[in-house]
């Protein structure tokens, strides 16, 4: 993968994402309380927690799909502020995959993948096509390049969405429940793609309740509840020996 460029605003070169005392409100409702989080280069962090605990909001703050009101968020040395420039710079480094895929329904899979490279980076069409095909091969759907999203299974759509993100050559990938909209038999293929990405050294933050995936891939598991980070631990410890009562209650529900 590409090298981390360091636009030193403090923070060492090996820190990709850093939250310091981040608060967020939706109107008058506070949904994130004093979030502190550091994701190092190449690390894989899995975020879990009950519905409404603020997982999506937190991960969406990383690329400023949601804006925070207090605290600092620094991504690859760039602090996220209101300035358009900082948002643009940060988004260049981050790819995101959504629960509902969010593919462009009027474009083929190939066109989905080439839209941003062509219009954001000005990559010539032929090069963008070649790039897209390479990533579609990597997620193992090169034969679907000229299909429309509606002609693909959910698993294939999600893999297309992953390829679309990768075409922008991100240094960090965010996943917000990438498999929860999928039929059970399609979950595997998406998790495999993600695991492969992880083994290639990508820095990843994944909101997911796939605990098998967390065990296999994560360096750290973060448990959120009511807008706070309640517990952070390596997966072994997190599953075997959770410290907090709320974590135990949650795990006992999730692991039947």
């Amino acid at each position, binding site marked *: 993968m590409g090298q981390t460029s360091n636009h030193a605003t403090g923070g060492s070169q090996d820190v990709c994402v850093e939250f310091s005392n981040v608060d967020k409100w939706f109107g008058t409702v506070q949904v994130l309380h004093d979030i502190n989080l550091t994701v190092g280069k190449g690390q894989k962090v899995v975020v879990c927690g009950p519905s409404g605990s603020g997982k999506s909001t937190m991960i*969406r703050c990383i*690329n400023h*799909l949601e804006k925070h009101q207090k605290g600092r968020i620094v991504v690859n040395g760039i602090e996220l502020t209101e300035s358009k420039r900082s948002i*643009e710079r940060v*988004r*260049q480094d*981050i*790819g*995101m995959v*959504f629960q*509902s*895929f*969010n*593919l*462009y*329904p*009027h*474009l*083929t899979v190939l066109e989905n993948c080439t*839209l*941003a490279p062509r*219009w*954001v980076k000005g990559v010539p069409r032929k090069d963008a096509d070649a790039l897209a095909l390479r990533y579609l091969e990597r997620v193992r759907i090169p034969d679907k390049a000229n299909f*429309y*999203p*509606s*002609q693909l299974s959910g698993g294939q759509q999600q893999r297309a*969405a992953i390829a*679309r*993100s990768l075409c*922008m050559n991100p240094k960090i990938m*965010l996943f917000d429940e990438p498999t929860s909209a999928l039929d059970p038999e399609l979950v595997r293929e998406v998790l495999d793609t993600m695991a492969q990405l992880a083994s290639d050294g990508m820095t990843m933050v994944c909101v997911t309740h796939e605990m098998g995936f967390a065990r296999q891939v994560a360096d750290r598991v973060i448990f959120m509840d009511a807008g706070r980070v309640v517990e952070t631990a390596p997966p072994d410890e997190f599953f075997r020996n959770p410290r907090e009562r709320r974590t135990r209650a949650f795990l006992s529900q999730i692991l039947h």
Partner: protein
Amino acid sequence: MDFNYILDALPDLMRGLKVTLTVSGLAILLSCIVGAVGAALRTSGFKPAEYLVTGYVEFIRGTPYLVQIFFIFYGLPSLGLRLSVFWSGVAALTLWASAFQIENFRGGLAAVSHGVRDASASLGLKRWHHALLVVFPLAARAALPSSMNTIVATVKNSAYLQAIGLVELTFVAVDRIAYDFRAIEMFFSICVIYLLCVFALSGLGHALEHRLNRPFAGR
């Protein structure tokens, strides 16, 4: 019914049809542009623009079309704006059709999912690229059926413009009836001509709809 009379009147009717199609064509084109821009303003979040567009739509929908035509042809000159019969006609028809196209496009915009917004933002797409390359095609497709209705109505409503003396299809027919009293022949003829125009337009609309729906057909 005297078909020879109709044949005799055909060149006149064709001249009228040409005016009908020119005026309607211009109004359709312009109203689609105004509709797209108006709908964008209407949902822009910029309150003054939103109120202005809403006020305009409500005004057009809440007043008789004929009054709007008279206002433009007889009223505007006293405000210092004198338009020819032809351009008064185009203006009146455009203003009327735009109000409906704004509503049609607004419906189209509402049908575009929020998800693609997130996708474009996360990919770093500029807002106007997203608007042009993603929102516009999706909204246009969603708005097409209702928009087609307005387009057909625009052609039919061009007939009102005979009230200010525009020599379009209906004017020609009414004019001849005044001299020759062959009402059945004339009304029959122009009905057939209007119907043919409407069928042609609907056919075009369906073809376009079919084309735009291809990506959504599924397996």
